[in-house]
């Protein structure tokens, strides 16, 4: 396997990633050899029925668990080469997770939630604060910086989570059903923010079962029984309207 980056814009690569649980007759294959690349400026949606391996894939892509076999490469660093402490640092500096239930710390303000990973990484608090405000501004919430999560709506909390996912040097957003707890209008706003962060140079994986949300992605990957069965990327808009005119 070549250790060269596939391209300068590559953020994440999965090479033949497989995950098996258990042994013998009770063995379960959650992922069966996944190859996937996410580049800067690219949002990849993962769709599939429950149990198809979507969440396992996200956990492994984020270095939260080790695959049974295969390689995870984040910004050119092979996770299998790194000790756990280095993986933790990589996660802190490069990755941001967005979950369905926001996962904000209630005792911290919106800004403190966003700057937490920076402070853990040893940033000076003034610098962290400036970066945090910038991230909050990117989701149009800089005027809510000092509010606590309880004072924010669900959509606002999720936007704070997105700001936290892209704060500082973080460039890879891993989102697991980020709109699952939101009504459709708020969900759309959150996706618009996620999309704009990706357009600004981040990369992202969006796990979702909702076709309307998956449609925000540049690529939709379909998983079934731990395998990628199909991928779809949009054709040109011209094609679309040619279709509409024929209909």
């Amino acid at each position, binding site marked *: 396997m070549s250790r060269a980056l596939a391209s300068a814009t590559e953020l994440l690569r999965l090479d033949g990633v497989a995950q098996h649980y258990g042994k013998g007759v009770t063995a379960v294959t959650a992922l069966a050899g996944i190859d996937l690349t996410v580049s800067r400026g690219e949002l990849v949606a993962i*769709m599939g*029925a429950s149990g198809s391996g979507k969440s396992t894939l996200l956990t492994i892509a984020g270095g939260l668990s080790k695959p049974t076999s295969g390689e995870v490469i984040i910004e050119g660093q092979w996770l299998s080469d790194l000790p756990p402490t280095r993986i933790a640092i990589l996660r802190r500096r490069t990755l941001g997770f967005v979950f369905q239930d926001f996962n904000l710390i209630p005792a911290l303000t919106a800004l403190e939630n966003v700057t937490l990973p920076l402070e853990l990484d040893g940033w000076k608090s003034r610098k962290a604060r400036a970066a945090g405000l910038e991230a909050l501004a990117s989701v149009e919430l800089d005027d809510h910086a000092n509010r606590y999560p309880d004072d924010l709506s669900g959509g606002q909390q999720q936007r704070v989570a997105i700001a936290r996912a892209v704060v500082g040097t973080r460039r890879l957003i891993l989102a697991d059903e980020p709109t699952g707890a939101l009504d459709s209008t708020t969900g759309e706003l959150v996706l*618009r923010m996620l*999309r704009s962060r990706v357009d600004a140079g981040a990369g992202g994986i969006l796990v979702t079962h909702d*076709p*309307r949300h*998956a*449609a*925000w*992605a540049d690529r*939709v990957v*379909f998983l079934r029984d731990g395998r990628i*069965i*199909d*991928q*779809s*990327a*949009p*054709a*040109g*808009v011209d*094609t*679309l*309207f040619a*279709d*509409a*005119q024929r209909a």
Partner: protein
Amino acid sequence: MSIRQSLLAILDQGPCYGYQLRGEFDRRTGSTWPLNVGQIYNTLDRLERDGLVAKADTDSEGHVYYAITAAGHDEVTHWLDSPVVRTQATRDELAIKLAIAVTLPGVNISEVIQVQRAASLRTLQNLTRTKNATSEPESSEELAWMLVVDSMIFAAEAEVRWLDHSETRLARASARGFAEPLPLNTSSPKRGRPVKAEPAAQAAQASQTEQLAQAERAKHVGQAAQAKHVGQAAQAAPAGQVAPAGPLTTDAVR
């Protein structure tokens, strides 16, 4: 048909000539369904024949204006007040394709579903991009166009959801052994109307005929085990229960 009503509704705003009507229709529907001038004039001819519009002045450039009549105005009001009824006769190409495919041997129906799902999602992606290029409509033309795009988004989404649902349904039917291909019906369909019978006797007779026909078909299948199974099922069926029209061999009586 909505083109006819749409043109009439535009004419209700004031007299227009054909080419002008085309422009008005396009800008009010985001140019999503462009009309050719021929269609416009055909429609105007029919509207005139039906007394809903009348030829009015001709301008210096030779444009013939059409003006709405009182009856035409009433028609527009009625159109706006009534729901659009989608008749069953509107064929859904995809539903027909899937329904037929599921009855054919050697068709990988999961693949058929997935190919469609990927295509529908591509459409949905394109529509979403188109929509996102505009944030909020800033004119009524943009608003009208946005409504059309939204409608297409919802239709594409519904299609993907229906495909997901079909996949689940298929898996469940397969597990229960009900997703077998349908062989061609071996009994030749009867032509013409059935002989009239007394209504009371009709149901019972239909049921009897159906049972006999099924037993007959089962024999044709030529598999002893299946024939026996079908025969038993036919005998066990309560009298007077009319089997659905045109069940094909064994599946229907299981």
